[in-house]
């Protein structure tokens, strides 16, 4: 590893790599699929085309985390209930755990990694930092993706409206008041639509 300023992710990846036994295939427990269930896909993610061979049953969440190392998108419940895996498809927020990667071809996928402009955080990311809109941080990427879409959708009339339209994102730490404050802050500084 040549990274002089390792992030938490690069450290975690390195540690995880050391613990893998070299002669055990990592997918040994996975059921071997019939060949017709494998295919090659090209997905447009954060403006880049990414081609990978996948199994048909691969969800977009698995594709992001395991095929492209975009691990910002989190797996929480894997059942569409918690919102930790929220991404945008063609600008609309969806849960990537209930989305088949193979069905995303021809669409624009945006993940939490696609929000910042280089080192400049997206205003919603900056607001989450400023308002301490997190504690453990696990739900945060999904919260931010949902919040960005919510402002665009125009559901920021009242704090109750923000809460209702953030109901697809759970936070077990209970950072909700600060999340609402962060969204309120961005909404108040975003020109009204139309």
């Amino acid at each position, binding site marked *: 590893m040549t990274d002089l300023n390792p992030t938490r992710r690069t450290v975690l990846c390195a540690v995880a790599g050391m613990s893998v036994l070299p002669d055990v295939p990592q997918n040994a427990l996975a059921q071997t699929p019939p060949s017709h269930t494998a295919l090659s896909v090209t997905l447009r993610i954060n403006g880049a085309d990414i081609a990978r061979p996948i199994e*048909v049953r691969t969800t977009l969440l698995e594709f992001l985390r395991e095929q492209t190392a975009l691990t910002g998108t989190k797996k929480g419940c*894997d059942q569409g209930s918690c919102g930790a895996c929220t991404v945008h498809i063609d600008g609309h927020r969806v849960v990537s755990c*209930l989305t088949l990667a193979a069905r995303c071809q021809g669409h624009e996928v945006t993940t939490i990694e696609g929000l910042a402009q280089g080192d400049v955080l997206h205003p919603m990311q900056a607001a989450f930092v400023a308002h301490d809109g997190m504690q453990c941080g696990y739900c945060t990427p999904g919260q931010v993706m949902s919040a960005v*879409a919510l402002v665009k959708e125009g559901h920021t009339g009242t704090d109750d409206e923000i809460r209702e339209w953030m109901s697809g994102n759970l936070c077990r730490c209970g950072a909700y008041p600060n999340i609402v404050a962060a969204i309120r802050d961005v909404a108040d500084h975003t020109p009204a639509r139309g």
Partner: protein
Amino acid sequence: MHAFQLIAAGTPGAGTTFIAGGTDLLQLMKNNVIAPDQVVDLAGAHLRGITATSIELRLGALETMADVAAHPEVRRGWPAISQALLLSASPQIRNMGTMGGNLLQRTRCVYFRDTAFACNKRHPGSGCPAIAGENREHAILGASDSCIATHPSDFPVALMAMGAGVAITAAGGGTRVVPLADFYRLPGDTPEIETILQPGDVITQIVVPASEAAKRSVYMKVRDRSSFAYALASAAVAIEIRDNRILHAGIALGGVAPMPWRAAKAEQALIGATADAAAFEHAGRLATEGARAAGMNAYKIALAQRAVTRALMEAAHPTAETGVL
């Protein structure tokens, strides 16, 4: 999730299913409740479009819950449809879930969803643990000794109160329109059969008549928390009132039966009646006539009655109460 083949078009048969929004299908497949060999992707099918006229509303089967809920014509002419959709699921799920798929959402019965348990719907003849088990969320109307699961969706409850129809295209290409009231099947001895759909049938459109009653429709949903939860009981009503007399009434219940439950007797009792609290309370009682509790769900009888009464009051005298944020 078992491996499967994803195809754009194909010959439907045993082991084949369709995917539209996929929100329920993927949960069912991940939990091994179903394990199709072939999944036919409807994404390429031309099943979109929202058209409203003075006669009817037509919703393409692949229109999303979010788009239909936000549509200005739907909100104006059929408000209970918009309300029912906005009170369903979460914003993310509503961006994915479709009209056709919502009609076909499978029950949330915990025994059906967990393959560790017996279930007559999943494995006919294996038994129903809900009847003597955790049945707080189960049906009080239309259930059988084989199955007491409820239909979980809100949207078709609103459709049922407005006399909607479902356009279906068969594998051979013929199209028919079936009244929603005839679309679902009660469990009886065959709880594994939930609709009249035959293998290869695809829902293409939902057709809802326009009416003064539909314009004045209301969806009232009661649940354990104020958002992102299934109905414990819900009521959709569509009434036309002139000079404080009720000219027409459509009433359906949700969350209490194996299908969206039309309360025909309550509807008939309201025709010609004065639009007041006494009439609405009477209609509420009639709406649950024949209800039978399994045990922990006895509270649903009073809850459903009150949901009907409140929805009727709201339709007759609108307040901000049903306003969806």
